[in-house]
């Protein structure tokens, strides 16, 4: 097994050289930019809305114990069973137990990135449960035995041709190049699964403390069906999903839609509070909420980066990130890709193993600028770098930097090194791009620029002499 950093480097190298992949991602995102900007322009003030969303999330996250308890008390009063799970293993066990105790046979899932954190599908399949992802993109990557490529658009790296081939192989369908026909194939398959399933598993986008309800945002209607037809509904949510008041949704639902997919509002925004209530005609007999910590409290314990828990998983920071657009979602090797993934993964899975993601950044700040809840993303990347170096200094970096400091502080040494450099570069073509090239890390895919014949210092002195 190679380490996360080796894996990242080799995948990133492969993907960024793959022009077809880059073209596909750019094409997919160009439509998003247009729609997102159109919808943002309709706001009286997008910046005002961001400011307010950030304030509300700050309030919720910084009083998390209070709002969690209010939420749990309200939802339990309506017949919900809440499972407090300190880590992924506890969540996995709780869900397996629900499935086993109720003699569940078939499970339908609607999109939940949180369940990817603890590889729920794998655990359920291992115990012999059939699990079907009902979101179209998730279903496609499930058939390919792949993790989601993007936390909102799971299959954006695939062409219709690849999807048609996949459906032909896995489902025996006729090949087609029509996205509509492909969607209808999946719809037909899923209709059967929805009606058969006795357990539905969903995520949650928000949890409202005031009413004890969760809110799920989706376009396809698959979450509506997942939570309507089976006799058991299990919703998996991170503990940070809270909003204090019902009316907060009036702000967050449109902002999530605009940031996430460039829509004014997503097709279905549904609140769920409990199992079927007295007098209701359908809906599940049991409603379980899995409250997952899984090291979110590590982020909470870092006041400097606590605002990373404001994240509503809209994916906007991925969509604008030059790194994401070049290396693609799978290179990260994480549940959450892009800038937000690079910020939180070191907290969730270990700083030293995942610090390289914070290095893979141009620090352009596009992520911070686009974030609807104003997470200070690109500065957090710097903070992760600083924390990693402080926790475990790298010996050669220390030597290199003290050498650099010495050079920059000493004018004579600096000009000597320039002179040596000008001599050295005459011989560089002899080793250019060979294993002997000291600049190989740069020259492998780039041309190394020559030093200017005269330094600025020299030019300035000459100019002065002339006048």
């Amino acid at each position, binding site marked *: 097994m190679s380490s996360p950093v080796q894996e990242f480097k080799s995948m990133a190298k492969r993907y960024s050289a793959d022009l077809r992949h880059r073209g*596909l991602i750019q094409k997919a995102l160009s439509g998003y930019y247009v729609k997102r900007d159109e919808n943002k322009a309709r706001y*009286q*003030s997008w*910046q*005002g*809305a961001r*400011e*307010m969303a950030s304030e509300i999330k700050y309030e919720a996250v*910084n009083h*998390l*114990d209070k709002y*969690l308890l209010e939420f749990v008390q309200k939802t339990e009063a309506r017949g919900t069973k809440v*499972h*407090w*799970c*300190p880590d992924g293993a506890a969540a996995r066990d709780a869900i397996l137990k629900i499935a086993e105790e109720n003699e569940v046979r078939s499970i339908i899932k609607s999109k939940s990135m949180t369940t990817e954190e603890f590889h729920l599908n794998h655990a359920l399949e291992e115990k012999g449960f059939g699990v079907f992802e009902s*979101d*179209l993109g998730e279903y496609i990557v499930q058939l390919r035995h792949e993790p989601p490529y993007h936390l909102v658009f*799971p299959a*954006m790296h695939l062409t*219709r041709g690849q999807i048609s081939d996949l459906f032909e192989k896995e489902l025996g369908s006729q090949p087609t190049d029509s996205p509509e026909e*492909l*969607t*209808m194939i999946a*719809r037909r398959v899923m*209709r059967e699964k929805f*009606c058969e399933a006795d357990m539905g598993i969903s995520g949650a986008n928000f949890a409202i403390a005031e*009413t004890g*309800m969760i809110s799920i945002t989706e*376009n*396809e*209607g*698959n979450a*509506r069906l997942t*939570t*309507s037809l089976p006799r058991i509904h299990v919703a998996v949510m991170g*503990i940070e999903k809270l909003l204090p008041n019902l*009316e907060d*949704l009036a702000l967050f639902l*449109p902002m999530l839609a605009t940031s996430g*997919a460039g829509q*004014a*509002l997503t*097709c*279905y925004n*549904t609140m769920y*509070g409990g199992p*079927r*209530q007295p007098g*209701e*005609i*359908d*809906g599940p007999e049991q409603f379980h909420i899995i*409250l997952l*910590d899984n090291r979110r*409290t590590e982020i*909470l*314990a870092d*006041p400097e980066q606590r605002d990373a828990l404001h994240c509503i998983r809209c994916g906007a920071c991925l969509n604008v990130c030059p790194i994401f657009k070049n290396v693609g979602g799978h290179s990260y090797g994480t549940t959450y890709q892009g800038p937000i993934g690079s910020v939180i993964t070191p907290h969730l899975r270990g700083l030293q193993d995942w610090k390289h993601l914070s290095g893979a950044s141009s620090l352009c700040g596009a992520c*911070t600028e686009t974030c609807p809840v104003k997470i200070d993303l690109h500065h957090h990347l710097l903070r992760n770098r600083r924390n990693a170096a402080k926790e475990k200094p790298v010996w050669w970096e220390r030597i290199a930097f003290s050498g650099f400091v010495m050079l920059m502080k000493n004018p004579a040494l600096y000009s000597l090194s320039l002179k040596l450099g000008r001599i050295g570069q005459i011989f560089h073509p002899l080793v250019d791009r060979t294993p002997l090239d000291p600049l190989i890390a740069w020259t492998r895919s780039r041309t190394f620029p020559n030093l200017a014949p005269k330094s600025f210092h020299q030019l300035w002195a000459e100019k002065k002499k002339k006048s």
Partner: protein
Amino acid sequence: MSNGREIILGRIREALQKPAPKHHSPTESSGHGHDSTGHDSTVRDWLPTVGPTFKDHVELFRKNSEALKTEFLVFDSLAEAGSALTKLATGWKMVGIHRNPVLESLRPALENAGVRLLFTDNGYEKAELAACDAGITSCECLIAQTGSALVTASTCGGRSLSVLPPHHILIARREQLVPDLQAALAFAKQKFGGSYPSMMSFITGPSRTGDIERILVLGAHGPKNLTIFLVP
């Protein structure tokens, strides 16, 4: 598992002992006239404008419906709505429906079209409901700002009726049209208070997906068609 709760709450309380700063990115600290003491402002100051009159709301709902590919029909009388419904339902075999005064008044129109009515109020077979040509429901509100309708499990025929059949027909009365999401949520809070339905859903257009090459396809898992009748 009973101590999972204590473990998590303990971790949270320990973590929160250190207060967190509010980050302000220098790039956009000014320019929108909002000071960070902020909570006097409401979401209505930031979200898209709606317009003050009923006519504005109808027009905005119509415009949003067009963009969403919702069929939005405004009627001056129930009789007109009835004949439009008869026309729509002609050729259909069975529709799902629930008991509600406004739907009751349109029942003759469906009988004229010769369709069988499957009432969900006393339970239903999933397969039978899925086989219906359409589901007809009432709603709690229409929202002009977003072109949405609010339906609930307890007042609109259950959880599945509005999402399982391939065509959803939603009947709304004029006074149900509200300006924005905030008004719709305030309405729900006032109406249901402490005993909310187990499900409340904002439906905004027919079911859709863009999961294949980001190309829009309608009718992903829910209804391919959404028709909204606005009646007196």
